[in-house]
């Protein structure tokens, strides 16, 4: 009996202790909280110490440096996707077209030395056309007789047919006059205007980072080159404008003017007699009319 009585007292005291324990813990926690609020961390003081040590400034410069480096890296990454500028595009594209049409144009052959490098340079300088870089590509086909392709500023790429030169037995001066006519035509912007397809303006000088550029654009420009060079050529109005410009450029030198007039006569005879060059009239209409435009007009005196 006594044994049961002791157990009862033990259980009751255990129950009492379990009731009191949480309230004691709560009180203790409250006391601790009070202690924390008594000693607050003075952030302002720490900040001041850091400022005195210039650690904050250093951290700031480091942060700025990292931001700058990241920006520069990003700029470099984006720059990889730059698309050709207006200044770089045309010479590149003309050469690209020449390479793509190597088998049609037949330019990879051993050429006769006409000495055009010096004769055309001298001719340009006598005319007063300075600081013009020229590249002349002789082609071994009658399909393209002579042409100037769009190029970058102060540069020009010419195509000249060796069979055409041989058939007409052109002199160095006549070849230079032919190239000058092509130069004038190119200066007037007819080719670039024709080849500038829709979307080219927004393409040139833009960037293709995280977006795709329209690759069909180059094919479209290439088709325009084909059309103009092999089929369509220039119209009468354009030819008239070119011929009158040539007249102005050459009329101070009677030898050159005569040479141009006689050369047009040679070409006129050729295109009328040789079936290989009948297409010439479609591209450059027409040598006969050009000769008439060059003739001084007789004004009737009333």
């Amino acid at each position, binding site marked *: 009996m006594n044994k049961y009585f002791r157990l009862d007292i033990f259980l009751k005291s255990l129950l009492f202790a379990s009731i009191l324990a949480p309230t004691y813990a709560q009180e203790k926690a409250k006391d601790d909280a009070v202690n924390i609020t008594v000693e607050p961390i003075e952030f302002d003081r720490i900040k001041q110490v850091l400022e005195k040590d210039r650690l904050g400034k250093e951290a700031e410069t480091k942060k700025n440096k990292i931001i700058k480096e990241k920006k520069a890296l990003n700029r470099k990454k984006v720059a990889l996707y730059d698309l050709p500028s207006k200044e*770089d595009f045309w010479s590149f594209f003309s*050469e690209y077209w020449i390479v793509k049409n190597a088998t049609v144009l037949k*330019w990879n052959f051993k050429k006769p030395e006409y000495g055009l490098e010096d004769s055309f340079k001298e001719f340009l300088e006598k005319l007063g056309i300075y600081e*013009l*870089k020229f590249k002349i590509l002789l082609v071994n086909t009658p399909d393209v007789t002579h042409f100037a392709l769009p190029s970058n500023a102060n540069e020009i790429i010419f195509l000249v047919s060796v069979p055409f030169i041989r058939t007409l037995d052109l002199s160095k001066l006549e070849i230079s006059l032919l190239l000058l006519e092509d130069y004038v035509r190119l200066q007037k912007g007819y080719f670039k205007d024709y080849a500038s397809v829709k979307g080219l303006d927004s393409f040139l000088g833009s960037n293709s980072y995280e977006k795709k550029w329209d690759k069909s654009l180059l094919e479209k420009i290439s088709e325009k080159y084909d059309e103009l060079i092999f089929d369509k050529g220039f119209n009468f109005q354009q030819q008239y404008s070119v011929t009158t410009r040539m007249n102005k450029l050459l009329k101070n030198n009677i030898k050159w003017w005569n040479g141009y007039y006689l050369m047009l006569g040679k070409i006129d005879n050729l295109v009328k007699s040789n079936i290989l060059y009948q297409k010439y009239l479609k591209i450059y209409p027409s040598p006969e009319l050009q000769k008439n435009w060059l003739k001084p007009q007789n004004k009737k005196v009333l």
Partner: protein
Amino acid sequence: MIKYSKILFIMSFIFFSRVEAKEEISRVVYFNHLFGHVHKNPSRYSQSLSTIECGHPVKIVKEKGNEILSGNYFKVKVGPYLGYIDRIYLSNKKEKCISDKYPKFFNSLNLSISEMYYWGKLNDQYVQGESKVQ
């Protein structure tokens, strides 16, 4: 005995003159056009040993202390090839061609090997010049 010493002298002369004529590298320059060729002989129509790209390092060869220039062509060493390149296509500094300025655009053209070869040939085939102020 005199006869043998004469032979020995002639042989040593031939040997040393050959050693002296040995070709060495003079300097390194860079190819400055989009594509081009290392030619077997100093002529634009000569066989191509290799097609090279813009910025490719080219070692100019010298003999007896002088760089070898045949007409406009420098004797050069490019990789394993010993050949000739026109001097107008070589620069002391690396130049930025269109392939360097617009790399992603240029790669997207997917030029074939034969197109690169033709582009190099195109540079060989041009008659080039520039009018200057007199």
